[in-house]
């Protein structure tokens, strides 16, 4: 199994008027060829920033990459210049975004946008690129691709647009696909189709996928390995079966308890009390402490950041005495 992307100790901060926001603080993760690594967390936990910063897509300033490495095909993504990154983006690493309704330019034909990466990175002529574009649309299951390719985004439904986005992302056969909550804006039946499509193409093309989501149900379905992020840090990382069978960290457990489908009928839905902490003013100790039950709070670290330890093989957890449940 070869590792496509290996991120070590990534640190990203935003220097704002309210202080330094440490959006990503020492995150490590890796993705293997043909596998899917999930990043799960609430809004603002730093999961998107982690991926955007790898491609230089965060606004700098105020954003700043303050440390870490990201090994990708023998080079460190974090050290590449903007023009070198432009050659990686859309050719070797592609992205799909959350809202398919706004991620296509309304004034351009779908085909024009679809073949942009081909024209740009492979220097194909328009007619050749169009042929590939039709194939790409067929591949993602869009009927009548020859006609559809000449239409405009507003003539496509949400699910269809997401298929177009997937086609666009994969048209150059990248090694890595970053999917940033690709199903969040879609309704449930379409969600299922899009997930199936991503998985199907991944299997056939052997691409590595980083899947960002806040939906644990989606995670269990598509991911091989899961990283749970909280307040810009990893709190738990494990293979998907292991994680769902034996969640070690209190935050992971709380997330799982909040899946509505797993709760008893007639009971009020469980939600994690409190709010994610303000990243500009993080407590020195365990970031999850304020949201714990009082008796557990007493056990949490308050003086230093809990370290990430390998609690069992391949299963990493942030070692805070108040949060970790040992077997």
């Amino acid at each position, binding site marked *: 199994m070869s590792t496509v992307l290996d991120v070590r100790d990534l640190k990203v901060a935003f220097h704002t008027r309210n202080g330094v926001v440490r959006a990503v603080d020492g995150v490590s993760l890796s993705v293997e060829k043909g596998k899917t690594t999930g990043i799960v967390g609430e809004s603002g936990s730093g999961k998107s920033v982690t991926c955007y910063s790898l*491609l230089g897509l965060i606004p700098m300033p105020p954003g700043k990459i303050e440390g870490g490495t990201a090994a990708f095909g023998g080079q460190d993504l974090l050290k590449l210049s903007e023009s070198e990154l432009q050659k*990686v983006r*859309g050719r070797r690493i592609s*992205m799909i975004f959350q809202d398919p309704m706004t991620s296509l*330019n309304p004034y351009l034909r779908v085909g024009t946008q679809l073949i942009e990466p081909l024209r*740009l990175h492979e220097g194909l002529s328009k007619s050749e690129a169009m042929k590939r574009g039709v194939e790409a649309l067929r591949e993602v299951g*869009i009927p009548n691709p020859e006609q559809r390719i000449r239409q*405009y985004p507003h*003539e496509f439904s949400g699910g269809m647009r997401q298929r177009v986005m997937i086609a666009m992302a994969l048209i150059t056969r990248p090694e890595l696909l970053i999917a940033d909550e690709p199903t969040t804006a879609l309704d449930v039946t379409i969600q299922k189709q899009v997930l199936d499509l991503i998985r199907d193409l991944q299997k056939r093309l052997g691409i590595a996928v980083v899947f960002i989501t806040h939906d644990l149900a989606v995670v269990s379905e598509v991911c091989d390995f899961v990283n749970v992020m909280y307040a810009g840090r990893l709190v738990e990382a494990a293979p998907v079966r292991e994680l769902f069978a034996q969640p070690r960290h209190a935050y992971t457990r709380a997330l799982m308890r909040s899946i509505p489908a797993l709760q008893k009928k007639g009971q009020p839905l469980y939600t994690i009390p409190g709010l994610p902490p303000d990243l500009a003013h993080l407590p020195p100790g365990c970031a999850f402490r304020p949201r714990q039950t009082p008796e557990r709070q007493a056990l949490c670290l308050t003086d230093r950041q809990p370290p990430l330890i390998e609690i069992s093989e391949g299963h990493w957890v942030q070692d805070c005495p108040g949060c970790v449940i040992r077997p």
Partner: protein
Amino acid sequence: MSAATAVITAPSGVSLSKGRSLWQDAWARFRKNRLAVGCTVLLAFIGLLCAFGPTVAFYKFGMTGETQDLVLKASPPSAQHWFGTDSLGRDLLVRTLEGGRVSLKVALIATLVALLIGVSYGATAGYVGGRADSWMMRVVDILYAMPFMLFVILLTVAFGKNMTLLYLAIGAVEWLTMARIVRAQVLTLARQEFVEAARSLGLPGRMIIFRHIVPNVLGPVIVYTTLTIPAVMLLEAALSFLGLGVQPPDSSWGTLIDDGANNMETYWWMLAFPAGIFSLTLFCLNFAGDGLRDALDVKSGKD
């Protein structure tokens, strides 16, 4: 191919022939607006008349706007002179058309100047953002605060009266609003997901601006342009009326109205015809602009 494909069927009611762009939709909406279409046609007619009318008059009747005939001086409209003649016996129709040439030319050039400066300035400020943006916009605010008439009078004092100055002066004032509009549009557009998506595909900044941002600001820019043209014409007329713009023997609608206003108690036609044509043009421009705005505004109705 996969199970995922099998579920998808072509949605009914979608014509699969050829895509209809938002421009085509807008055009269809515009065509339904009879008033706007009528005004556009009328506008084109006035434009053609001004462009070719004086030439025809010269070759057919040997008349120019400067052919004086003191025997005919200040005669009312007749079969020979439809608009009558002015106090020097010059045919008022020909003079009005020649004045129209100047007025329309000033309008077009000054608007173009405003468009060029405004769009590039606004787009730069909006796309770059941050501190550069706020400085650039403060400059616009300062220029806004300058009294226009004083500015023009100072310019004419410094450089003398000529047409280039007129274009520059008007253009220099009119680009400010354009810059603000474009900047606001670009500011929201640059944070849209499709711009992010384009960046994630590896497109360089200049391609993003020209392929993805500019087409999206074009709608508001076109609309504002049609509303700028009448404003520019009014400014030109005002300046000429005050003697700061076009100088005799050249005429523009502004100077003609000025002449007419001096004589309106005895020779009504000298004011009525130039003013009538001028108002008609402004009226048409405004309605055509309104029609365009409605047509290009996606929110006004999705049919």
